[in-house]
């Protein structure tokens, strides 16, 4: 078994129009810029994207939105240093926004991967965000029922990867990547370094290969912050 894929283009080739795609990262850290750009090149449209943010500048997720590929965004914080692409799309009515508190977003994704269709959280009780959701009292406190969140595909960024799909992450670039890997039917990882089977210490594996359908090596991946300082625009 070898889950290695030669190119980012090949890695995202199967994503159809209308797919729900989770994209890892928090701001620029952990964002799979090269996979997103490959998805732009591939052309899939009418996507629903799950990401903590809404893109920054004109690269990565912002570029995907700028190309008009995203019908709906599920996120917690659609602000950034340069959110102009999202803001313009939003006010033009080209993109729908579903705001989810960050911890609820993370837990819904984790629940999707863990086979938990619903759970209760104190987060957002009594706020507009919880409107219309079931509320239940446990031990005298009110909680909101939240539902799992799953995706057709997850595009994630990892540090090391082996042919079975075992992955590690680099520092805070871990963020949403490991949980999104569990919640998608098909998880595609870009890894900064592909290593041989057995080269990753079993104690250090953060995402076991069972969650990964394919991985492709992208050495020296672009960092969103640096692309934005260089005023990069994709494509």
């Amino acid at each position, binding site marked *: *078994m070898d889950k290695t894929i030669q190119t980012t283009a090949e890695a995202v080739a199967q994503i159809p129009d209308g797919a729900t795609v989770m994209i890892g990262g928090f701001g620029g850290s952990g964002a799979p810029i090269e996979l997103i750009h490959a998805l732009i090149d591939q052309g899939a449209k009418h996507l629903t994207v799950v990401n903590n943010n809404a893109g920054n500048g004109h690269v990565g997720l912002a570029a995907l939105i700028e190309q008009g590929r995203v019908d709906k965004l599920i996120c917690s914080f659609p602000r950034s240093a340069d959110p102009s692409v999202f803001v313009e799309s939003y006010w033009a009515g080209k993109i729908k926004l579903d705001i989810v508190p960050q911890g609820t977003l993370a837990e819904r994704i984790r629940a999707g*991967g863990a*086979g938990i269709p619903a759970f209760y959280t104190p987060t957002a009780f009594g706020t507009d965000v919880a409107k219309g959701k079931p509320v239940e009292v446990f031990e005298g406190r009110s909680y909101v029922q939240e539902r799992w969140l799953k995706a057709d595909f997850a595009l994630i960024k990892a540090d090391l990867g082996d042919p*079975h799909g*075992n992955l590690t992450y680099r520092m805070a670039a871990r963020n949403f990547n490991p949980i999104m890997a569990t919640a998608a039917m098909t998880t595609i990882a870009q890894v900064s370094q592909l290593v041989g089977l*057995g080269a990753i210490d079993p104690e250090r594996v953060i995402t076991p290969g*069972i969650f990964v359908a394919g991985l492709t090596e992208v050495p020296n991946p672009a960092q969103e912050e640096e692309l934005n300082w260089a005023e990069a625009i994709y494509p």
Partner: protein
Amino acid sequence: MIDITDIKLSNAQIAWRAAQDIDDGAYVNLGIGFPEMVARFQAEGKQAIFHTENGVLDFGEAPKPGEEDWDLINAGKKAVTLRPGTSFFHHADSFAMVRGGHLDVAILGAYQVAQNGDLANWSTGKSGIPAVGGAMDLVQSAKRVAVVTDHVTKNGAPKLVDACTLPLTGVGCVTRIYSSLAVIDVDVAGFVLREKISAISTDELQSLTGAPLHANGPVQKLICPKVLA
């Protein structure tokens, strides 16, 4: 009633047959005891990846006696070994893997399997201390749930039944049974006979089975290597 003592498959042969249906790279959980034997009979060129509830993926076979590390065990508390590709995770992550539907196959033992796929394998009823372990999680959530079992109990009673009389492990979960006499699928029609050993007739097999055996396409000969370690 027909005496199947000399014609029935050994546990090793049943395990061998179950192993033939496991794809290369499949993620598999084997129940404690008899089902663990399946790992020994993987088809040539195929390598499954085994999961154990206590937080190990892709572990290897038992170490040599005296070389056990008791921090590296499987759900049956037997020592196992590392392989290239092994990973460790905690119990909640381990069952997130199970419950989230990420396992391709779970193979378990059975006290009874009903024609609607219900499985009873954890409690013999009132007497004895109940012990469920991870079975209830596995049977509800693996993509494919199979059973390896003798076709009848030691007393000759059917283990494939109309409806389970013992406490259930899971409802409508079993899709294939590898018994000591046959391979039987469980689908909306009930028990569907796929393969049987040549030494028994369909009528005889039916007489040892607690619910109707349906046919859906040809019934193949169930042939296993005779001698298995």
